[in-house]
């Protein structure tokens, strides 16, 4: 081969490389869509747990893509009744705009009996989130739930599988998880079990924001700075603290996250009580 051929080959190769290059956000999206479709294909009776935070709203966006905007299953909101008012407003607006089959679940009994964070954060999360989730799954006989947890959020979540089986008592047997190879996800379970499916396990907080920016996904206004404060992670109004920030646009949030040294969930009370609260909560079925 002469020098001219070498040069031509090199140019062809370079253009080809440019042409076939998927950005890494595309790759994250492709993997998530495959998992979402796989969960539906295998289990049919599934649902999304939508907390209305940035992660599960992004997951909802991916689900709309996976099913060409005709989502064939319900979207559950576990409502502790302590959420921010902006969350409720967002829920009403987009449930309508995106034509969602919204299923709102509340632990009315515990609320009547006065359950609140003051009775203990662990007890409150367990009663108003985990318990009500259990009841909803039992009532509708869901075989799998889609959740937007990510490995980079919390060390204990980094141990999760994409398809994670839970037993009848919701227990997560983290000491003996099934192997999970490539994209051959676990497909069968015993009757009384259900699956937690985590299509966004491989995303980071920064990826989420870049993707929100790229796709122009609508997001609750609490994430944007007002009076030098913003929320990085949202949940119940009483258990979330804002962080110091002037980031009032997605671009600025991305910039902020590229240099931050503060953990994403630093404002979340339930992570903090002791080092293993999250492990305990999760082994009992917490999200």
């Amino acid at each position, binding site marked *: 081969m002469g020098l001219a051929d070498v040069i031509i080959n090199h140019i062809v190769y370079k253009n080809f490389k440019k042409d076939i290059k998927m950005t890494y956000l595309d*790759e994250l999206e492709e993997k998530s869509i495959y998992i979402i479709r796989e969960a539906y294909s295998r289990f049919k009776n599934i649902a999304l747990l939508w907390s209305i935070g940035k992660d599960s709203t992004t997951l909802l966006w991916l689900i709309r893509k996976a099913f060409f905007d005709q989502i064939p299953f319900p979207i559950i909101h576990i409502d502790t009744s302590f959420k921010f008012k902006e969350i409720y407003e967002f829920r009403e607006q987009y449930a309508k705009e995106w034509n969602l089959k919204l299923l709102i679940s509340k632990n009315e009994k515990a609320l009547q009996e006065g359950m609140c964070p003051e009775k203990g954060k662990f007890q409150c999360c367990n009663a108003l989130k985990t318990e009500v989730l259990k009841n909803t799954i039992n009532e509708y006989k869901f075989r799998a739930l889609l959740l937007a947890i990510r490995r980079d959020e919390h060390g204990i979540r980094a141990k999760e599988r994409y398809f994670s089986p839970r037993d009848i008592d919701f227990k997560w047997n983290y000491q003996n998880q099934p192997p999970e190879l490539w994209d051959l996800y676990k497909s069968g379970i015993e009757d009384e079990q259900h699956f937690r499916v985590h299509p966004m396990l491989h995303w980071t907080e920064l990826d989420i924001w870049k993707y929100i920016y790229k796709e122009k996904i609508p997001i609750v206004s609490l994430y944007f700075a007002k009076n030098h404060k913003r929320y990085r992670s949202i949940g119940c109004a009483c258990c979330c603290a804002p962080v110091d920030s002037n980031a009032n646009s997605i671009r600025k949030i991305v910039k902020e996250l590229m240099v931050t040294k503060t953990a994403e969930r630093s404002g979340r009370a339930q992570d903090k009580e002791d080092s293993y609260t999250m492990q305990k909560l999760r082994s009992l079925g917490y999200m």
Partner: protein
Amino acid sequence: MQKENLSIIITGHIDHGKSTLIGRLLLDTDSLPKEKLAEIKKISASLGKDTELAFLADQLKEEREQGMTIDTTQIFFKTRKRNYIIIDSPGHAKFIKNMITGASQANAGVLLVDVAEGLKEQTRRHAYILGMLGIDKLIVVFNKMDLINYEEKKFNEVKNELLKFLEGIGIRPYYSVPISAKEDINISKRSSANMPWYRGPCLINALDGLKPDIRIERKPLRFSIQDNYEIEGKMVTVGKVLSGTIKQGQEVILLPSLKNTRINSIKVFGRHIKETRAGKNIGLILDDPALAKRGEVIVQKEDTAKPTTQFKANIFWMSDEPLKINQSFSLRCANQDTSCIIEKIEKRIDSSTLEIIEEDARELKMNETAVVIIRAEHPLVIEKFSFVEDLGRFTLEKNSIILGMGIII
């Protein structure tokens, strides 16, 4: 500018320092939230230990108390060059299935050896598994150089032994890096004071020196059907392009049913496209949608691919129940699912020493590997792993629990 991502599995024998190295990488690349280190200090003290960097990766209470990694985990850090996803893996023989779970998600590997202790059972087994999974971008790291006084001679001894073993399984590592994770030597900067004889890069520069694969798609079309949806009165066949390109108007065959049809159009939410390529999950509107079933593979009309019921493979057994010849399993490969038997175990091999234990064997035990002949009940569309990865790898399962993995050779 978007930085690229690279996921790397850290492997090696138990106690050779994998989790400690990961803690060190996080610390040196300034990737830790400020409260994290304080938490680790507190927990280490409560267990009566010095600050244990391994706890940054070992998050389970049981892992910290027992001082060993049980399950695989993934941790993120970035250098100036790129974003890394570090996959930690347990080094105990009992948890090989968790190591394999982590390795199946990696693009590159670090194999870590305690230079004072030398090669151990899991060093060799992990190397073998990485080779089997096609992870050929490998860095070998010699940890605990402080324990041998940073001596070149001892380092070379261990290094040569490992390189020889790797050569036998067809792996040529990109770099051999001596370090001390505990003493922070040669991680983020070269340490000429301790090891003037070492001329290679520090570990972070070695990682940054790895080049990700560029997939050049001159391969034939393989599209795996995942499901069918009815969208606005039309049947949409969804699935993934495993290799090659797919185009509107293309004449295709469905395998193994051998039915002909044509790609009427490609459907992607929110966009209009006429052509796409490997890696994409898309919807297809076929001229005859009734044909498409999950597990079928769409190929170009002129393609000569032939579905098969009998083939040779290399398998790794990870269940404590031995595999027995002629016992039936379910086999999954891409979206294909069939029952099968292992007809013949040609060679039963120790996955650490690579010694052939037995030819024409009757059974295979946990952590053993073998060359086998498989007979499937239904025809499968398969390819060599080196040609189309998704069609060249499979799992063997019973009651939907993965017992073994296989690579088509």
